[in-house]
């Protein structure tokens, strides 16, 4: 187990290192005019050169890279070009927003997806099955920004016009400033994300559950005279959840790295939106910081999935 974790962590660090190389390389291939932008239109070449020097942009790329790695190993991801704020601070501010979004939405889509999937699998080809499949595919085939805009239109705009100001137009209110306001700000983004992802989980649970319900041990469970509900949940769902857990870990890992479209539509200052802003401003330290953090989230999620897998299925041994 310990050997397994160490090896996987080693792999993860290797992946992260390759990613820093790729991002650095890409950034310097593209034409950059950060110093020009900062200096303003009437700046003299001397001013621009001075700014370049201050930001370290006049050094050769490999020196800049070594400088970055040296700092990163010490937990310093640099400072953004425009306000000289530490990148770790920027990530620290955006992370709670993204985590609120990802965790809340994941609870919703898991509940929706697994529940619908089980119902569909227990009554295959029934009216409920067909209805839930239709429901799932309907939202699945929506572009995510459109779903967000529709939710805003109906549940914010029309509802507010009708005199019910239940949901704000967007933005974020920290949990520490009142859970109710926080909830009001999060419900629509959660829905936008969860309805989209629930479809995958409905189909995944349904398929996996149908397979499991055909297994011999389900027949054994029924032959033991235990209640059907227990057969479905304790014997059936228990096995059917394994692929769902795998998918969930991967999805959650990706979401924690930033949900670009949903955060943009609902003006949530999370990692996704911060990354988009940084890209528009060619703010390299912020871009690298967020990409690195997002990759780390995926790497950690994958390791966790493997560990959970071994806990769920005693036949799986980690080595």
């Amino acid at each position, binding site marked *: 187990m310990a050997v397994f974790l160490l090896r996987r962590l080693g792999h993860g660090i290797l992946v992260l290192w390759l990613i820093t190389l790729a991002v650095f390389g890409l950034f310097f291939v593209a034409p950059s005019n950060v110093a020009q932008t900062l200096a303003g239109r009437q700046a003299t070449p001397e001013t621009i050169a001075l700014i370049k020097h201050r930001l370290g942009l006049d050094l050769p790329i490999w020196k800049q890279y070594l400088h970055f790695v040296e700092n990163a190993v010490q937990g310093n991801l640099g400072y953004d070009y425009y306000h000289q704020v530490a990148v770790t601070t920027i990530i620290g501010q955006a992370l709670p927003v993204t985590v609120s979004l990802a965790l809340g939405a994941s609870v919703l889509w898991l509940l929706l997806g697994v529940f619908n999937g089980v119902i569909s699998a227990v009554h295959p080809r029934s009216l409920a099955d067909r209805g839930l499949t239709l429901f799932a595919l309907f939202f699945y085939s929506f572009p995510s920004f459109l779903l967000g805009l529709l939710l805003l239109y109906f549940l914010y705009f029309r509802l507010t016009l009708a005199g019910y100001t239940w949901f704000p137009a967007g933005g974020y209110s920290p949990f520490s400033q009142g859970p109710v306001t926080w909830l009001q700000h999060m419900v629509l983004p959660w829905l936008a994300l969860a309805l989209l992802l629930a479809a995958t989980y409905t189909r995944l649970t349904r398929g996996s559950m149908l397979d499991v319900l055909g297994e011999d041990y389900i027949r054994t469970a029924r032959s033991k*005279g235990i209640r059907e509900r227990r057969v479905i949940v304790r014997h059936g769902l228990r096995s059917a959840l394994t692929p769902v857990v795998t998918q969930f870990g991967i999805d959650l890992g990706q979401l924690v790295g930033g949900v670009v479209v949903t955060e943009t539509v609902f003006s949530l200052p999370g990692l996704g939106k911060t990354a988009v802003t940084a890209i528009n401003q060619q703010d390299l330290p912020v871009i690298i910081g967020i990409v690195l953090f997002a990759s780390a989230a995926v790497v950690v999620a994958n390791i966790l999935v493997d560990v959970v897998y071994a806990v769920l299925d005693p036949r799986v041994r980690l080595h």
Partner: protein
Amino acid sequence: MALLEVRDLRVSFDTPDGIVRAVRGLSFSVEPGRTLAVVGESGSGKSVATQTITGLTRGATITGSAYFEGTDLITADAATLRRLRGAEIAMIFQDPLSSLHPHYRIGWQIVEMIQAHDRQISKQAARRRAADLLTLVGIPRAAERLDDYPHQFSGGMRQRVMIAMAMALDPALLIADEPTTALDVTVQAQVLTVMRRLQEEFGTAIILITHDLGVVAEMADEVIVMYAGAAMEKAPRRDIFYRNHHPYTQGLLASLPAQNSLRLTPIPGTPPSLISLAEGCPFAARCPHVFDRCRVETPPLADVQGDPRHQSACWLNHDVTEAVAS
């Protein structure tokens, strides 16, 4: 009085290809403490018939009756059947690896069965009972092995676990569906011995589904030979081997490997489709003694030479001809 009395059981499935008549008018009875072997090829309806009377067949059209200790299992509601399953009618299946849940410890699985029917019993008491049962079926260090998962047992040991679980609540009837088919030959005899020992100890009646005539010779009191969803011959074990009547039974016996012969004698042809079964004897197309009547009229099951314990559904049976004529 018989423990289980099945009368004219018919089970059919509506499939996209047509209606599959899996069981076509099967009648039999099981006496307390006795062993009835149901023999036949794959698809002869032996598993469907037994799973139907325990309410485990889904999406089927079922007629007939199956009285178990005064309750008709065919018309009983789901809750009644559930209370009987496990407690009064226990089952073991062919593949003990896939029949045990891979994610739960075997102790948990046995305790679950006990607690499903005995709500008073404490978990500790149920675990003690589970350990006793494992000892009873010959699993060493039973108390420790309760915490093992099914994949940590060998095939024969897993089937012993299944037997222990099935016997946990001292059922009146044990349905064993091909219990030794998936096991090594050397292990088969051990598992059969365990079953027979427990049967003597608990007085359990057994319905033994098998296609292995060696197992029949070892275990059975009475035998039903099934073909295409119906009984071809019913007889006490000795009669099946030494005074058999039906050509299908004879074909089955002839296809056994014999010590003084190097060749196997298979039954030519394949079983008929259960979707489009024509009138006449279902075995007619493969029968070496077939004559005109076999192809137009289905022979009923009737006594052989006036012996009510030995019946054969064949036009060569004089009693059949007489019964139909009168």
